[in-house]
């Protein structure tokens, strides 16, 4: 990028801070699913807007990297656009919206539909890193529960779901067990995306800036979503295809189209949607003159 800022260290953070975060990252990768405390810094955005993810990305990014940033699957929302242009400025890296071209993908609340590959890194922005917080407000106690792998409590939440709704109604931030040892929140991704974490070839890093925690899932690590024997984990399903590109088996957002209750379901992953629509267009280009709205 030619509008790169001068006078800043590459990636905005100073080298000492990066060393501190890298140490936390190494520890996190060595103990999959374990929450490593780190000295979260101020970055030029409010806490709760992805400062944890930004610090992790800033620490691992280099000049050869290609960055993609998504917010709820979309490349064109405020959070995604501003973080992408932030790193274009302070790290001088190339950015992209294509999942397969990116070497680092920072995400809020989604895993892209395009399968990730070896060598890619996905950085999650995490608002609440402690999966047990709902039932146990004391940090000292949750740490002890993690240390002793005493996770009966988590099942109480799932039990309550079934008792109230007849099925496990947790559809996002669905708790997972990493490598058979540590209970972890998957950051609030939809439960639809949970299976993608399991034995994923990409490195998955999680940063919680406000809560000052970093955790990680190394490539090809077992990530099991909790469930009961008679009520096993079931990811969300959608009955209709995407209204724009016609994809099935993808995560859909409901878009309100008018004031009369009209709505349509479209892909939450804008990159996937555009490419599927474009491919469908190319196939029918010679006969079909109607434009598919972008």
């Amino acid at each position, binding site marked *: 990028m030619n509008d790169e800022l001068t006078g800043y260290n590459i990636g905005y953070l100073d080298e000492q801070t990066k060393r501190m975060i890298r140490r936390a990252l190494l520890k996190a990768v060595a103990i999959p699913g374990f929450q490593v405390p780190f000295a979260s810094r101020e970055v030029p955005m409010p806490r709760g807007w992805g400062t944890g993810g930004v610090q992790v990305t800033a620490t691992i990014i280099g000049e050869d990297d290609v960055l993609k940033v998504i917010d709820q699957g979309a490349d064109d929302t405020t959070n995604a656009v501003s973080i992408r242009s932030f790193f274009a400025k302070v790290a001088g890296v190339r950015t992209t919206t294509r999942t397969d071209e990116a070497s680092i993908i920072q995400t809020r609340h989604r895993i892209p539909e395009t399968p990730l590959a070896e060598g890619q890194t996905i950085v999650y922005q995490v608002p609440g890193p402690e999966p047990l917080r709902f*039932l146990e407000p004391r940090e000292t106690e949750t740490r002890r529960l993690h240390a*002793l792998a*005493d996770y*009966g*409590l988590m*099942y109480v939440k799932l*039990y309550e779901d*079934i*008792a109230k709704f007849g099925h496990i109604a947790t559809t996002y931030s669905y708790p997972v067990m990493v490598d058979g040892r540590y209970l972890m929140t998957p950051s609030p991704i939809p439960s639809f995306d949970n299976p993608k974490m399991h034995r994923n070839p990409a490195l998955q890093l999680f940063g919680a800036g406000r809560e000052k925690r970093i955790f990680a899932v190394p490539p090809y690590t077992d990530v099991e979503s909790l469930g009961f*024997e008679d009520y096993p984990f079931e990811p969300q399903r959608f009955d209709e295809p995407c209204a724009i590109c016609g994809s099935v088996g993808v995560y859909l957002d409901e878009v309100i189209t008018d004031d009369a209750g009209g709505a349509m379901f479209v892909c939450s992953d804008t990159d996937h949607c555009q490419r599927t629509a474009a491919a469908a267009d190319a196939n029918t280009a010679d006969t079909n003159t109607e434009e598919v709205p972008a």
Partner: protein
Amino acid sequence: MSGDQTLLEVRGAGHRYGDRYGCRDVDLDLWPGEVLAVVGESGSGKSTLLGTLSQRLSLTEGSIHYRLPDGTRVDLSEISESAVRRLWRTEWGFVHQNAADGLRMHVSAGGNVGEPLMATGWRHYGRIRAAAAQWLERVEIPVDRIDDTPATFSGGMRQRLQIARNLVVSPRLVFMDEPTSGLDVSVQARLLDLIRSLVTELGLAVIIVTHDLAVARLISHRTLVMKDGRVIESGLTDRVLDDPQAAYTQLLVSSILQG
């Protein structure tokens, strides 16, 4: 139930708050299936003793030995924290004076009773729920309240729910800290009746702390009288209450209102 092997052996036990002793020089033995009452005025160290025995408070001096189901005798201060937690989950119960301390007030009654089961590895919703329903019935809580939270329960119901939650994993030893105080007399009577029948049915060993001699008389086999952090008298409940030896015990017994 073998009568010759103690479940709990306590020698010279004490717990210190800062430079002050909460309880000191306590010796006691507890056999399987036995109910031991600890009585005394407030501030006499009863609850401190209970906390120390159940490993909620640290043991400042003395020793506590516990016999595991396989017959091995362990020193509680020498086993790891995770082993103590395992005891809490599988072998021991603790009934708090205030039910809100022993329950999750915003989790349903079924979830409260099911939690200890889930903590010990139950992963079948249907079976957990069936066990919870069965226990609610045993403690006389209507089964249709299974999905209500204890926040909506009366004091007596909360206390019975707490007992169900403690007994669902079939413990061998239950600690009770004034389980009936704060309840009105008719509810107290029903609760005591329930505790007494469950104790006999399940062959539980119980250490119950109370300031109410009537409670001790009704459910305990042996009684320990505490004053100023020390045990001043102990023996069979009927002996202690009918023929008190220590001056303080005589005072305690004579202070009961005769109706």
